[in-house]
């Protein structure tokens, strides 16, 4: 998380080319101090590598047996690890995809308002508030979703069911509605509100980095403001936008509390996103089941955690790789 200081990003010029001009010829005592200090710094860097490897290793050690337990461990609803994890994966992805569909256009909109549309006296405080909202703890979002939003969304559920339900293909998504509003749709909306500040923060950053000359050239050629945005800002920011979406996806996949607190859990796979009960997400399932503390089930939970870790690692890896690639391209 870069500090929210405008000057900072401006001055952070790459200094990778500067040569190391430290005094190697200094006294022998200084040499010892140098070696100790450099060693400590290196050790700290290696600690980070070790921690990341440690996460993988410990989860693998503890969870390895979770992949092949006797049938009864996987509970009444599944017979094997695959049968146990697939509904959870479906639940994870449904909630995350709903969240992305809602959050992405909205956060691009906010980012554009802040970077290009609003006058500065609106943009600056709004950007500050969005940054603050990124710091609101997830459990508070969950609390708000469970005690407030779910009830407010009941009419929407009924309306969706009545209006869109009868339509052939789309209607599958809007079957019998949840009377309390605690559906995947609600969980997805809460998730969307949670990832909104993150996606907005990154896209705002890349939008505002569009070279001023490109924008002015477009306007001078007679482009309207939207054409200017479409022809200069979006192409320049495309990779940043993609990676922002993927980072948001990573956050949504791994988010625990919002889903745990909002969704009423079931085990039947269906297309109905406003159903009375739906499969929960991997993270939420761990938070709900850990209390049982039966050693076998814990192994299974850790194994599902390993699946989640690898999945989010992959998503984040791709996101960062896309950003890194585009930064190199721009530097050239």
């Amino acid at each position: 998380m870069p500090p929210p200081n405008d000057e900072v990003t401006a001055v952070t010029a790459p200094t990778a080319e500067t040569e190391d001009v430290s005094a190697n010829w200094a006294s022998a005592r200084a040499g010892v101090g140098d070696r100790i200090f450099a060693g400590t710094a290196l050790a700290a860097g290696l600690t980070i590598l070790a921690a990341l490897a440690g996460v993988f290793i410990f989860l693998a050690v503890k969870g390895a047996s979770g992949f092949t337990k006797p049938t009864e461990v996987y509970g009444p609803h599944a017979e094997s690890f695959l049968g146990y994890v697939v509904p959870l994966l479906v639940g994870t992805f449904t909630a995350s995809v709903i969240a992305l569909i809602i959050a992405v256009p909205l956060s691009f909109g906010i980012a554009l308002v802040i970077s290009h549309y609003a006058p500065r006296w609106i943009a600056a405080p709004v950007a500050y508030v969005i940054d603050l909202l990124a710091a609101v703890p997830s459990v508070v979002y969950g609390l708000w979703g469970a005690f407030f939003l779910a009830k407010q969304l009941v009419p929407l559920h009924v309306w969706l069911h009545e209006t869109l339900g009868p339509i052939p293909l789309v209607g599958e998504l809007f079957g019998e509605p949840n009377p309390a509003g605690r559906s995947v749709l609600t969980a997805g909306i809460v998730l969307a509100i949670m990832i909104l500040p993150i996606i907005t923060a990154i896209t705002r950053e890349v939008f505002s980095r569009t070279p001023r000359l490109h924008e002015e050239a477009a306007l001078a050629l007679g482009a309207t403001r939207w054409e200017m945005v479409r022809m200069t800002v979006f192409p320049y920011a495309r990779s940043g936008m993609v990676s922002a979406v993927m980072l948001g996806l990573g956050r949504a996949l791994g988010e625990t509390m919002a889903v745990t607190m909002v969704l009423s859990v079931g085990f039947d796979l269906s297309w109905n996103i406003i159903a009375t009960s739906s499969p929960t997400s991997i993270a939420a399932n761990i938070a709900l089941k850990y209390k049982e503390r039966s050693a076998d089930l814990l192994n299974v939970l850790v194994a599902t955690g390993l699946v989640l870790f690898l999945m989010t690692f992959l998503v984040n890896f791709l996101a960062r790789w896309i950003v890194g690639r585009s930064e190199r391209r721009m530097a050239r």
Partner: protein
Amino acid sequence: MSTLEEVQTRVHVSLVQPRLPRQAPTIVGVIALSFGALLLVLGVGVVSATVLGALAFLLVLPAWSLAIEGRRGATDRLMTGLIWTAFAIAVVPLVSLIWRVVSKGAERVDGVFLSYSFFKTQIDQPVGVYHAIIGTLLITLGAAVISVPVGVMAAIYLIEYGKGNKLAKAITFLVDVMTGIPSIVAGLFAFALFTLIFGPAYVSGIGGSVALSLLMIPIVVRATEEMLLLVPDDLREASYALGTPKWKTIVRIVLPTALGGILTGITLAVSRVIGETAPLLLIAGATDRTNMNLFDGAMTTLPVLIYGQNLRGDAPAEAIAWGAAFILIVIVMVLNLVARIIGKIFSPKKG
């Protein structure tokens, strides 16, 4: 003279396209607003009236523009409208969230709420969240004690020593990836680590600190890195020129210059992990008593307490949950504010 007139009559190219009057959006806005108000009077719900009013605005303005300014102008008006609408839609839930927490929370919070724990020694003793506040502060402090030295030293390695080499590049990349680790996975890691060492039923605050530090280290590293990059090389070179060894240059010159930014980054990192729930559920457990010992026994934090109250779901539990959420948000906001102030006070002098 006559030829010029001839040219003027023959070729007439207008350099300006017809445009809507400047007040057009305002006019349409007022119309849409009164349309919405009319619907409201006619007995349509608040939500539907707002939605229909906004739709009216989004349709009428581009249509008018299409008639006068043409397709491109209409598209521009439509997109401008949509972008501002997206903005408005997004602000509603965020404002509602803050309003809810503040209004519901503030009425439950008082001196008693802050100074009693859940543990009752008498039947009519009032309950409060003292134990959870203590737990939150201790566990977060533990996480900071672990992650600040590791994070800052790792950043020093990345910027001052390993600049550009393969290992440093790999670490930078992995730190970026690490910022996206789901918090529950960090909790599972701490859980797996501690139960492998200390046996299956192990529960303690320090486990929570370890899990949180896994989430906190990457934030500290990133912030410190950015700040160290800001320190001008002239300062380092001036120090070397005086014969100062490299480590002393870093400790005496580079770190003090970047101190403000590093402190800001650390404070922001603390505010980020102080609200984590999932990892603490797994390893730090929950208790009704005030536990001051990080290394022994379960410890409740505010987020875990909120979650527990949400599970109970009855009215008094809900009130306690909102109160605790209010305290948590206040702590986070104060930390953010402190971070800003530190940043202002210690901001690197440019010159």
